[in-house]
């Protein structure tokens, strides 16, 4: 593999909830253009770590750097404009708006005419085109005019993913994009994520519980456990790591990669 630049770096990132160190002194580097998986048992601190990266939570101590720029204290609404998008483990959409409108709002944020208040939104051609493209790509075309709340759970997960694809960010932070999806729908979604990542040279940070998926798609894996980094390496290295085996994978995953 070619040498890649670091796009995201955390330095001693720590987050306490009361006395609980949900993220404890995490220093990692994420290479641009790679798919970097973060795994770990429930409660390991993966979502909290994401919240620190995306600005949803302020760290107790430590810093996050993006392309060398300190992200600490940047308002949440700046993130997508800097090139960082995130999706949520618990679906976070506009339930009463249509699928189309959900995606359109995500894409509209990247336009520069958000304060033209006599313009007809339906005539923002580039935005409409992008919306139609993304709706089609995540496979929701036939449901485009339905309110998001009536979609099945799996389709809401696709919508959630569509809302991060629409603005086309450089970095995609995906928190269990397949959470709660029917097993047969998972490969389709993972393939889509891989396509987006590879064709656009994107950086994807992926939290995922399905070990088969993680082992097959990741360039690099970070294993978290009780807020700390337990191990880091390529899928093969992680699979061979004795500590990871006992602490986390122990018996749950067949390590014949």
């Amino acid at each position, binding site marked *: 593999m070619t040498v890649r630049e670091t796009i995201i770096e955390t330095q001693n990132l720590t987050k306490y909830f009361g006395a609980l160190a949900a993220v404890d002194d995490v220093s990692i580097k994420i290479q641009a253009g790679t798919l970097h998986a973060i795994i770990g048992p429930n409660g390991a601190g993966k979502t909290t770590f994401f919240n620190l990266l995306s600005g949803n939570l302020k760290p107790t101590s430590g810093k996050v750097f993006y392309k060398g720029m300190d992200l600490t204290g940047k308002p949440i*609404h700046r993130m997508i404009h800097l090139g960082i998008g995130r999706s949520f483990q618990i679906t976070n959409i506009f*339930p009463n*708006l249509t699928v189309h*409108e959900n995606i359109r709002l995500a894409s509209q944020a990247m336009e520069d*005419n958000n*304060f033209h*208040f006599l313009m*007809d*939104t339906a005539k923002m051609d580039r935005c*409409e085109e992008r919306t139609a493209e993304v709706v089609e790509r995540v496979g929701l075309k036939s449901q485009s005019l339905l309110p998001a709340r009536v979609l099945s759970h799996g389709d809401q997960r696709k919508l959630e993913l569509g809302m991060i694809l629409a603005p086309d960010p450089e970095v995609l932070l995906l928190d269990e994009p397949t959470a709660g999806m029917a097993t047969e729908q998972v490969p389709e979604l993972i393939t889509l994520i891989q396509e987006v990542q590879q064709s656009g040279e994107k950086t994807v940070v992926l939290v995922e519980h399905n070990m088969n998926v993680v082992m097959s798609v990741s360039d690099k894996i970070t294993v978290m456990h009780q807020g700390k980094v337990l191990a880091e390496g390529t899928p093969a290295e992680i699979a061979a790591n004795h500590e990871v085996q006992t602490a986390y994978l122990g018996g749950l995953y067949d390590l014949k990669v």
Partner: protein
Amino acid sequence: MKNNSSFLTKNRGILIFFAVMLLAPFLIGLFEGSTPLMIWGNQGSLSKFIEGLGIEIFILALFALSFDLLFGITGLLSFGHAMFFAVAAYLTGIALKTLAMPFWGVVLLVLLAAIVQALLFSLVLPRVKGITFTLVSLGLASVFHIIVMSSDMINLTGADVGLQGVPVPAFISPVTERLRFYVIALTLLVATYLFYRRFVASPTGRVCVAIRENEDRAKMLGYNTTIFKVVVMIISSLTAATAGMLHALYQPSISPSIADLGFTVTGLLIVLIGGVGTLSGAIVGAFAFRLLDFTLRRFMGESASFITGAIYVIFVLFVPYGIVGTIRMRQLRTKPGWQRLLGMVKPKN
């Protein structure tokens, strides 16, 4: 999703309303035997009375419209909304009476004050959310109500008696030029409504709806939601101020009751009756509210307020989407119904 239908077809409802309302005084004149020329000269007494009722409804509708933009579209429930209306009304009265300012100067002053007030309310917007905003806005408006009512202000505001005898410029005198006043109020209402419709369909308006639905998500999509809320606050305040100014010009006296919570609740009720977030519901609701109030008072005197209160409670419980909201939902179901029926009748080819 291109929508190429013209301005006329898209706004058919409000344009018909505009035409009917313009003709109404003349049609009513025919009933009482006044010729259109007499109506034009402000002579028919029944039509003049109806024009007066119309003006009151248009003012209420403007106020309710501004409330719906904040509450129904953007999800900001302000319990201090009456202040936007009352400040404009009092300022108009004081500027005309005590300061003897020229009319257009007064208009400018009132609109400026509306913007300043909106910014004042906006100071708290980034910090508070939901019910806290509601309470803070109530607090701000209560301070204003207390100031208006205080006896130290008696020379300016008339304290609890109200501001009496505002000298209204002759060209819009509600007594001698009532038809003109009526047409101006109607035109302002229709123009504001058309502007609001466009606004809600604009990129800015769509973000406001997103803020109502899920503000945190809107932020994470990349919108600085505070700025959008400030913009809406300013538009809403300017509209409420227009209504307040018309109120001061139309009424012979300005009562402090327009500055209290009760008047904000009137705005809320109108929007609830008409349909929250529908915009046209503000107009429909203002008609329903004012006409019901008028009829009941006519037949039952002061005890009517009890009955109106009860009617509203029942209405809000049983027609939660309001008049316009309910009609829209029925349309959603009846349209495909009719199509299905036609499909059965029409021969297949």
